[in-house]
């Protein structure tokens, strides 16, 4: 069962298209990473799912309910969108109490969540005196208040120190193990590689990839080719582009992020074209390399 599904979701702001015919699915009980450069449409997509902005076209379901029934699914959703927003002259505890009262949650959840994010000691202090990392943790506590089935976190690691990032990672895994679905938007691709078991790669409002992180990382490799001359360089680029893969040009090498099987295809096609002594090395690709390759592929 999918916790989130979108079909042709589209959102324009004036002449600008923030989300463009976006179709994706996120399985329940997974940690799904939302990846994309600034302006890719990550935050707008999350806002659409939370009913904060209205789509111009397309449809979506969240926890099995359409966007038009947000009163049926939002009580089961916790969210931290963009920078955590609070009333700076109120204490951390009061900020949470405001939301707990509004959402009809038990008062004891406030203390529980403050403890979960390790803010009990500073709960009575004004939020204006908190560091960025503390505000981030308070934001996560706010998102966890309703004990949500679906947790949407936009850049939750912002401002956290390395220990905080590790703790956040462990917290997310614990929540996933308790059956919760977590959607995690982040620029820290290495961090997502650690925790995400589902990936959605966005670029210019479209999904470049939506699927299992394991499949992506194991089936995708990076080919490093060392052409001997400009003719070989041009040949490899043409073959890769015809197969739909982008080529990263470096001084002496070419890099192609692609499925492992393409190495044999490339070798065969270049041999047939006369490049018999081409060196092709296969390397495991990082999420960052895959993402850059997908973005460049979109451009080419």
């Amino acid at each position, binding site marked *: 069962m999918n916790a989130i599904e979108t079909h042709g979701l589209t959102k324009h702001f004036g002449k600008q298209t923030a989300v463009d015919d976006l179709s994706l699915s996120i399985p329940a009980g997974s940690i799904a990473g939302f990846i994309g450069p600034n302006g890719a449409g990550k935050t707008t997509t999350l806002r659409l799912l939370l009913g*904060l902005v209205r789509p111009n076209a397309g449809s979506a379901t969240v926890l099995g309910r359409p966007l038009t029934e947000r009163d049926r699914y939002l009580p089961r959703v916790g969210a931290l969108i*963009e*920078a955590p*927003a609070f009333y700076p002259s109120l204490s951390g505890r009061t900020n949470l*109490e405001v939301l707990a009262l*509004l959402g*009809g949650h038990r008062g004891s959840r406030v203390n529980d969540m403050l403890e979960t994010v390790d803010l009990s000691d500073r709960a009575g202090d004004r939020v204006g005196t908190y560091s960025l990392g503390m505000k981030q943790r308070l934001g996560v506590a706010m998102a966890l208040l309703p004990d949500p089935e679906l947790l949407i976190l936009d850049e939750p690691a912002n401002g956290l120190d390395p220990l905080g990032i590790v703790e956040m990672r462990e917290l997310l895994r614990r929540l996933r193990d308790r059956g919760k679905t977590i959607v995690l938007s982040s620029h820290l691709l290495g961090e997502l590689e650690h925790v995400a078991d589902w990936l959605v790669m966005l670029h210019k409002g479209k999904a470049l990839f939506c699927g299992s992180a394991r499949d992506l990382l194991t089936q995708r490799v990076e080919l490093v080719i060392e052409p001997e001359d400009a003719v070989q360089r041009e040949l490899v680029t043409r073959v890769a582009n015809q197969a739909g893969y982008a080529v990263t040009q470096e001084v002496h090498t070419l890099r192609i992020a692609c499925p492992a099987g393409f190495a044999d295809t490339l070798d065969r096609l270049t041999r047939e074209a006369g490049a018999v002594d081409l060196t092709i090395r296969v390397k495991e690709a990082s999420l960052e390399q895959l993402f850059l390759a997908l973005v460049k592929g979109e451009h080419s």
Partner: protein
Amino acid sequence: MTSVIRAFRSEVLKFRRWTVLAGAAVMVAVSTFIAYLTFHQIVSGATGSEMSGLIAAFPTSQGLVAVIGQARSVILAIALIQVSANLAAEWTQGTVRNLLVREPHRLRWLTGKMLAVVLFVLLSMLLTLVISGTFILMLAQGQGIETAAWTSGPGRRIFVEFLGNEMIALIGVGALGTLIAVLTRSVGAAVGIGLAYILVLEGIIAVVAPQVSRWFPGRVFNTIVGSTVPLVGPNPSQGYTAAMLASVLWIAGFAVISALVFRRQDVTA
């Protein structure tokens, strides 16, 4: 209904903010100071055509309201700032997105919040009138001025009428502030536009087209209070009932437009 009550209670928690309390404190302090200045001018024997009405009314049952009512423009302006800034701050601070995720029924949230904010402004106004009234009463008694007419039956009735009309004017200003905040979604813009409209724009229109401007919201809210004690505001030329009806229609109009806009608005804060 439960959602509205939850939104109301949640808003009440936020009144602990110093900015909210400071607004009420400024209302009390400035209004009391203006009342004191008016009182001082009268008892120190000030003359001038603008003072003659006040001096004549001073020993009558209208005396106390005439003195403390001099600050009502300040009360209305502070109320407008309080309401519009309070609501617009939810966008400026970005907190509106937290709130609308926790309460998906936008209009229930807006209703609960604005009920709490307007109630707070009304209580601030009541506190202001009670404090400034008590202060002027004590000053007068301390100086041996006869105040029996102020606290007589007719004096108390005039005070209650003034209070009632002022409450309607404040609710009107609150509805106007709500609409401006929903449309501008920014504290600076909401406060600036609100004050510019009430204090400047309507004044200019009143000079150019007085017959039309007397039906404008700022004017009708102002004149219904002036109908109680003419010394504290202009008397409604269209009559009290017509001015009151216009006030109610403006309040309803502002509320409906605010609701329609807010319900469909994209929250990008």
